[in-house]
């Protein structure tokens, strides 16, 4: 089971269908948008892990704008651009703006699935690290409390031992008096 939600943004209905079928077959959850504008709307109202967007689309909102919108919305969204060979320079520019990768048309699905798997593994690792850190923080603060209490208790017992020792060594008091004071001191510990 793949738990990534993928948004496909492409104005070509054939490519949209194709991607939808292939991704669904690999058990990814798929959302579709027919242009950048609808893409951004979908992003704003759904949880999305990966955006797969065409670079060149008709209208004001192209792949770059979808990328910018997605990154603005949530830094952790991964954006993969789909480009024609002729616009590879633009795709490289997009990488600088935070795109995770680009794929050339026609889409090589083996390549695409490999990238998605990588993203999925990466997310799992990050999630694990966060969980571990959180678990560690909880353990650490509980341990700190216990240790601090023990530290104070040990110090107070030590000071009782010290005063008992000095009573025991106090030769100005007779034996019975020393025992009495020591017992009193011991009782005060509880």
């Amino acid at each position, binding site marked *: 089971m793949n738990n990534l939600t993928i948004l496909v943004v492409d104005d070509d209905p054939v490519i949209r269908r194709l991607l939808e079928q292939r991704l669904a077959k690999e058990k990814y959850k798929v959302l579709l948008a027919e242009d950048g504008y609808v893409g951004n709307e979908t992003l704003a109202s759904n949880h999305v892990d990966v955006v797969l967007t065409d670079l060149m689309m008709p209208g004001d909102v192209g792949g770059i704008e979808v990328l910018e919108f997605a990154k603005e919305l949530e830094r952790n969204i991964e954006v993969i651009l789909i480009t024609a060979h002729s616009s590879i320079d633009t795709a490289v520019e997009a990488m600088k703006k935070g795109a995770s990768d680009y794929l050339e048309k026609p889409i090589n699905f083996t390549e695409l699935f490999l990238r998605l798997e990588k993203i999925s593994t990466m997310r799992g690792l990050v999630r694990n690290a966060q969980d571990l850190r959180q678990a560690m923080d909880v353990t*650490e*603060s509980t*341990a*700190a409390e216990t*240790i*601090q209490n*023990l*530290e*104070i208790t*040990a*110090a107070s017992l*030590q000071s009782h031992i010290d005063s008992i020792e000095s009573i025991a060594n106090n030769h100005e008091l007779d034996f019975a008096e020393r025992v009495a004071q020591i017992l009193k001191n011991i009782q005060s510990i509880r």
Partner: protein
Amino acid sequence: MLKIQPAELKVIAQYIHDISGIYLDQSKSYLFETRLSSIAEEHGCNSYQELYQKARKDAGKRIERQIIDAISTNETLFFRDNGPFELLKHKLLPEIIDLRTPSSPRLKTNIKIWSAASSTGQELYSVAMVIKDLIGNQMDQFNFKLLGTDISDSAIQQASYGKYNKFEIERGLPRQTLQKHFTLFGDSWKVKDELRAMVNFRKLNLMLPFGGLGKFDIIFCRNVAIYFTLADRKKLFNKLADSLADDGFLIIGSTESLTGICPRFVPKRHLRAIFYQKKT
């Protein structure tokens, strides 16, 4: 990854202990391999024994420094555990300022604070920020000496530079504090000059004599003794007691304890934090 042989474990563990005091469990060979294999490769060594020999012969001690950087855990964050910094602000600083303010108003108040394993500097800069926020525009009446020391060259280097990436910043620094004391520097942040000017960093191995550091009013020695053996911890805290003013304060890590380690210190509790003072 280059595998470590059982016979090498003992030699390497001993060597690491000798140069840093750090005790690595010999039953965990992966600890050695993950941290040292790339150094061995870099110097063209086919075994850890060979790396050890090369490191010993290396007059410039470059390999030794690399090994120390690789085995030391520099994990730290701004305002780590929070409690000690609240303590500093509400109790330790006001008390020490009271004690140290000279009777003549023409004289400055001298206060010395030491972060004894400062790593990449977050601890000492956190102290500096607490001081600045507490004292505000009366800083000219004080002469604060804030010293950070560490055995790791690369840690000292980053601390001195005072530059932190967004992950380091995100851990522990509230937005307001960030904007007050840091400036954006590319995609990282740099401590402002006036904060940087309050602190000094230098290399020091806590296992060796401290030299002429003098006495401090407040010492932070947190999350470093945990890597040492019991015997080394005893020596360390004994030396720290020598370096602390008689009415000074010691702060250790939130999960550390001095029970059975240094009877010269007594723990005291304030709010939710613990600090130590020398027994009178």
